[in-house]
């Protein structure tokens, strides 16, 4: 499995170029901020009618990552659905998601967009501990938990003229980029984001191949 390999509190991880995180020892694929159903939610609220293809597109990429990693479990770090109503996916998308979920453990962590247990089955919780790692939606400020893996911020970084979604990590904490097709990003150096990390933190940019850089 190609990817940028690194260590977080003793767990050997691989940041994939797609924006997913793979943990080979646990056979776990970790994703954040899928924002499924975003176009539907915007339309429901009377806004623009965006191209209604982002669920198809996000699930297509997820299917490819599952096939490439043969993951036994999937952990979604919240904001998997753009709002609770969006979790009620249209028939074809629901079936497609069910096929991806079949035969593997699937954990939905709550996000601010999708609090509470939602439609598609699987396990559900506010956070999950697995070995040395703790998975939650938003990173805790202050001391925090060593081995915390979260999402929420949609970090991105600009390098050599290109802006890309990026993993951010400082050896104690990891924040994942948004995986959903219709998601934007927050600059990794933003005052809301950068102070969460120590001075020697790395950003791992997604794209054709992951690229690590201090930020």
């Amino acid at each position, binding site marked *: 499995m190609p990817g*940028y*390999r*690194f*260590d977080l509190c003793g767990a050997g991880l691989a940041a994939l170029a797609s924006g997913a995180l793979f943990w080979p020892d646990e056979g776990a694929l970790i994703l954040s901020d899928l924002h499924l159903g975003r*176009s*539907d939610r915007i*339309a*429901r609220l*009377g*806004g*623009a*009618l*965006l*191209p*209604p*293809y*982002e669920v*198809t*597109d996000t699930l297509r990429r997820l299917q490819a990552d599952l096939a490439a990693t043969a993951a036994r479990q999937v952990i979604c770090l919240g904001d998997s659905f753009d709002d609770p109503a969006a979790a009620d996916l249209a028939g074809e998308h629901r079936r497609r998601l069910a096929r991806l979920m079949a035969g593997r453990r699937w954990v939905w962590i709550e996000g601010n967009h999708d609090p509470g247990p939602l439609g598609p089955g699987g396990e559900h919780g506010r956070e999950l501990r697995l070995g040395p790692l703790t998975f939650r939606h938003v990173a805790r400020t202050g001391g925090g938990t060593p081995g915390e893996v979260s999402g929420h*911020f*949609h970090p991105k970084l*600009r*390098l*050599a*003229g*290109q*802006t890309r979604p990026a993993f951010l*990590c*400082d*050896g*104690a904490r990891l924040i994942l980029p*948004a995986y959903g*097709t*219709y*998601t*934007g*990003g*927050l*600059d990794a150096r*933003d*005052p809301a984001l950068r102070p969460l990390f*120590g001075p*020697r*933190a*790395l950003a791992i*940019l997604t*794209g*054709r*191949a992951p*690229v*690590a*850089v*201090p930020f």
Partner: protein
Amino acid sequence: MSTLPPPFASWFAERGWQVHPHQDDLLARAAEPALLLIAPTGGGKTLAGFLPTLAELADGRHRGLHTLYISPLKALAADIRRNLGRPIADMGLPIRVEDRTGDISHARRQRQRADPPHILLTTPESLALLLSYPDAPHIFAGLSRVIVDEIHALAESKRGDQLMLCLARLQSLCPGLRRVGLSATVEDPAAIGRFLAPHPAPCPVVLADPGPDPDIAMLETEAPPPWAGGGGRHAIPAILDEIRRHRTTLIFHNTRAQAELFFRDLWLANDEALPIAIHHGSLAREARQKVEAAMVAGDLRAIVCTGSLDLGIDWGDVDLVIQVGAPKNVKRLVQRIGRANHRYNAPSKALILPANRWEVVECQAALQAVRARDLDGTPRGPGPLDVLCQHILIAASSAPFAADTLYDEVRGAGPYAGLNRADFDACLTFCATGGYALRAYDQWHRLVEKGGLWQLRDPRAAQSIRMNIGTITATETLKVRLKPRFGGAALGEVEEEFAATLSPGDTFLIGGEVVRHEALRDLTVEVSRAPGRPPRVAVFSGTRFSTSTELCARMLAILAQDRWPGLPAHTADWLMLQRQVSQLPRAGRLLIESFPVGAPGTWPGPGPEAICLYGFAGRNAQQTLGLLLTKRMEDEGLHPLGFVASDHATMIWGLDPVTDPAPLFDPARLRAGLDDWLAGNAVMKRTFRSVALVAGLTERNHPGRRKTGRQATFSTDILYDTLRRHDPGHLMLRITHDEAMRGLVDFGRIEEMLARIGGRIDLLRLPRVTPLAAPLLLEVGKVRLQGRARERLMEEEAARLMAEAGLAGPAPGG
């Protein structure tokens, strides 16, 4: 014999003024449903437009709105309100005049809707907003005349298309409505007439006396201009001399970045501390207003400016205009020259300064064209469909409508006279359902049809539609302010793309001063003054126009001369040398030079071979040609590595020499490359962004919302890629394609060039780079090829930064 009513006649007489014949004409023909006045700057154009209104309102019997005045600039509306105030006060006319733009208070706007003035001065966007309210019929009840000022400028943009759709709407509300267009000198008055008139009504044209020929010459300097690029800084001593010799000089630049660099150097050389200032669209409003006020008061000797001073605000006593850099288009040059000597029937005085050798030839061509009164222009083609989509949403916000009625009404607008029903229906479907191949949003359609009338499903949507009215889609910018402890004054704006490249400590130019980037806070770049530090250049969006077809043709004609007595010696010698070692490009043929450009490792990079083709098709088309040809060369195994384009030529470098150019220029294959390969290009994405905003597919980033929900918004590039992958036939992609072909891609001019050369290609194999090709080596904007090049650059940059940070291994934090 004048048709002036008595109070007006004596008002003119008291001032010792003569009524201009065209002002009289407009009074006499006030009943025409549509009328176009073409007059040079300073010809009393605006008063001509208003005289019939003042005459009709003089008896005080009209109730409600009588005349709507529309200008492209808010500042112009405020200016006109002051100017109209004088005759109205002097003659004691019972007329209320108000302006309405985005700048006036909410309370006043509410009151204007309830109790409209007799004369309302506004902009196309504010008019569209008024028409989106359910009470539009009440607001416009009684409206009798519409005056469209600077219509030549509006007719060149989507703002004008939107305005004409709005006028069609007004025509339905007020059937007797009469229209008057006021225009500067243009190449095709009849086309502007068709644009303005309610289709199919005719539009008579009133031509004012164009006045004497301008006094215009090339500014020759002791130092020869540089080979490429420019900005005219070599001519600063000569320009300072001119400033000393005149009362007020306007110095026009084609881009904001050039204006900033020029102003800085001019200021450094200004030993006598002459009062000079800079004015362009990226400066803070406060800064611009200060310059404008100083200029009107006659306190300034020179203003370095860009197109932001192009339109007809009364700028006082300008007696010299200097155009720095080739004007790219004769019409704009003529309109700029008109800024000098703002008095009717006095010749305008102008100097034009070529910024490099190529521009010497281009300026010469422009001078010939001005003297021949031969203006250029490109017909704009039919009204774009993204503007129509927005218009449909605006109509729905105002009141339910029947599709047939709206279709008929829209075809009353000149730019949409030829609109077919299928395209109209496609736009309506897009507004209603999104128009996707995949059935979607069944419950959430934006528009629904009830009892034969289309309306908003959710009336609350009207608010977001109103927030997104308008067709100006500038790139995102960030405000620049001094840090609070330095006073916090607003200085202007820079492009987001540029701001993203800045780190604390970097210096750049804005408003003529060097500032140091301190922090980025709440989407504002906070800076401190850093005089004396070398600046990085601010990259402003300043539009890069392509040299017009007519100017290119005139340049080819100049190159065909035996000798060039009219050109400065340095340029004539350069052309002669080219003729000796190669050929000069000729009309009706395409010259391609092929030569080695140095061993691997020397400039231009690893490519030992180059070709230079002189297409004279304008910068955008030459750029596209570079993209398409390098793709063709890749397919033919010629290993291209990169290219650079100017208005006249494209240079491509690579590993192998080109020996047979004909197959590269096969039009069918070039067009095929356009469809599959160019579609993924950044140029198309930029065009798509503007189309998506105008059509209402995405919403504008309003400052407040951006601050809070930054990570929630995503770029239109994602929508473009998604549509291309899943719905390639979608209306938005079709509109994007059509627009790019005419605009940034400019494929029309490539086709025109291919037709012009008709397969007559001269390929010359030469031992070294030629005199004409050499300047291209110095051009900025070189494009590196290879899809993988970007990834490699990123990896190299990352490796360097990792090493710098002492992070050699892959484990973070370690």
